[in-house]
């Protein structure tokens, strides 16, 4: 009978909000891309951030505009200033009919080393207020190699749940089958332009058959970029080995503590037997006041996961650049033979 009864309006409205389609694509406008690139390039070598504005439509997140954040000094009173700036910008942009909806933030990065705890923290902050948010990462140094290095990232839901509960023990991770690849999820980017802008671009495109990006790509000297990449990679490997040492230390301590607990327990048992023989009350087999029973905290694995992510990123970059160099070198060889 419940099935044939028409659902009340409230029920219908309530259930339609339950299912949110997963985010599949981020659609950026050419304007936002150019603004991000301009802002990041202007402030090299320092890293900058900014806010993304747009719309959340079904499984597509549209980014239609963005504005940069001023570089913040580490001062408490400037915090309020920063918030004021944001409100002011949003208000002003709303007056000219720009989408007033925050959908995330963008940041520039150095050699692809953006996986830090701060990123995760910022994500959690944003996620509390906005249902869907994305972080766009732009790498100016890699773009100088001729690739448009723009990535859209999101934290996976499973990771977010774990992080919220601050629960990073090895067992939990194994339960959820969460490995280091599952922290960040990269979303493909589509670029769209308004018809007017594309009309202008088509008209104004200079007649050159060869463009700046070609110059960048066909440049033979990749050594400085590779060198820096390797430097970062080596540093990260050191960090990773430090983290692994931490784990080893923890496990060693844990096993030593357990051994201590066992011996203590044995002694207690022997004592109890003696007491029973003497007719006295047996002592309890646990003693929380004893320091060897204090539980040792397992070190969080977040850091090691992040470092692993960074290392794999560097490796991928090196691979990419090496492939490009191969192409270029063989091209040079062919030219030379003429």
């Amino acid at each position: 009978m419940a099935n044939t009864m028409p659902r009340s309006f409230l029920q219908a409205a309530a259930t339609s909000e339950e299912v949110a389609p997963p985010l599949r694509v981020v659609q950026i406008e050419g304007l936002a891309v150019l603004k991000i690139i301009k802002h990041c390039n202007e402030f090299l070598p320092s890293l900058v951030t900014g806010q993304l504005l747009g719309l959340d439509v079904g499984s597509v997140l549209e980014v239609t505009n963005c504005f940069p954040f001023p570089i913040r000094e580490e001062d408490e009173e400037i915090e309020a200033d920063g918030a004021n700036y944001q409100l002011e910008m949003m208000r002003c942009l709303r007056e000219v009919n720009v989408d007033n909806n925050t959908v995330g933030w963008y940041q520039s990065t150095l050699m692809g080393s953006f996986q830090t705890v701060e990123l995760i923290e910022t994500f959690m902050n944003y996620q509390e207020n906005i249902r869907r948010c994305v972080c766009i990462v732009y790498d100016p140094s890699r773009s100088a190699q001729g690739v448009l290095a723009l990535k859209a990232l999101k934290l996976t839901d499973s990771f977010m749940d774990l992080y919220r509960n601050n629960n990073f023990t090895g067992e939990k991770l194994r339960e959820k089958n969460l490995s280091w690849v599952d922290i960040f999820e990269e979303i493909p980017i589509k670029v769209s332009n308004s018809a007017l802008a594309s009309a202008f671009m088509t008209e104004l495109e200079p007649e050159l058959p060869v463009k700046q990006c070609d110059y960048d790509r066909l440049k033979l000297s990749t050594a400085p970029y590779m060198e820096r990449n390797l430097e970062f990679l080596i540093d990260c490997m050191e960090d990773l080995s430090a983290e692994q040492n931490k784990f080893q230390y923890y496990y060693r301590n844990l096993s030593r503590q357990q051994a201590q607990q066992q011996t203590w327990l044995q002694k207690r048992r022997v004592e109890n037997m003696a007491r029973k023989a003497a007719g006295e009350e047996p002592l309890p087999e646990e003693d929380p006041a004893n320091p060897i029973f204090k539980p040792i905290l397992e070190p969080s694995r977040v850091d090691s996961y992040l470092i692993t992510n960074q290392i794999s990123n560097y490796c991928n970059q090196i691979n990419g650049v090496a492939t490009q160099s191969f192409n270029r070198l063989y091209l040079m060889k062919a030219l030379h033979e003429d």
Partner: protein
Amino acid sequence: MAVLRFFPPFSPVVSAKIHAVVLFNICDCYVRRPDQADRVIGTLLGSVSDGVVEIKNSYAVPHNESADQVALDVDYHRNMYLSHLKVNPKEVLVGWFSTGFGVSGGSALIHEFYVKELKEAQSSIPPIHLTVDTRFKNGEASIKGYVSSNLSLGDRPLAAQFQEISLDLRMIEAERVGFDILKTTAVDKLPNDLEGMEASMERLYSLLDEIYKYVDDVVEGRVTPNNDIGRFLADTLASVPRMSTAAFDKVFNDKIQDNLALVYLSSLVKTQLGIAEKLNTAAQIL
């Protein structure tokens, strides 16, 4: 005590360079304008050097326009200007833009306002007025820049004359991003390393083909030879470094070996990561 403010005379502006961002921003503002407005007006920000104004950023300012009156939201303009200065203190006011072809009567009034603003800011250049024809009135995209000079008879100001200045569209960033991405209304995927490489090599290849064709044509007498092009080609070919085959081979092999070593190293590191992860999570407390 009265403070005497010295307004430095405006130095002449020769030309202006516009960055691609500004154009996109103006298009976007035009598309988003309120229904009753005919055109969009806004401020231009940038920097000046040697009589060349570089326009780097812009924002739209809401305004009301009727038959003979124009009202600009000055507070909005000032607020946005301050906000933008917070981010980039080097981008200063350099002028204003409006969409629509040519200069109209109302524009003169707005221009006066901007002249005053620039004088307040002790700037040394006159404001630039940029018109972007979004209606494609003559069937083509026309972007023009003007500087105004006041025509006066004795003490009475008569009119303002808008002189066109030469514009230079700086599309280097747009080129970097790739015109294909910016030209069409939708791009499905950003090209990654290899695809971009392929595209560049194809372009290089077609360039070489054209040069071959041209040289062949000249040799066979089909096309009159152009000395400049010939000299340019000769210079280009001469700039390819001349090395003996042995030396080139050695350099080439060294480079290839370096690259291979790097690829090997990175795959080694990746394997290491796999092992480390297994060790970290698989270790159980017995």
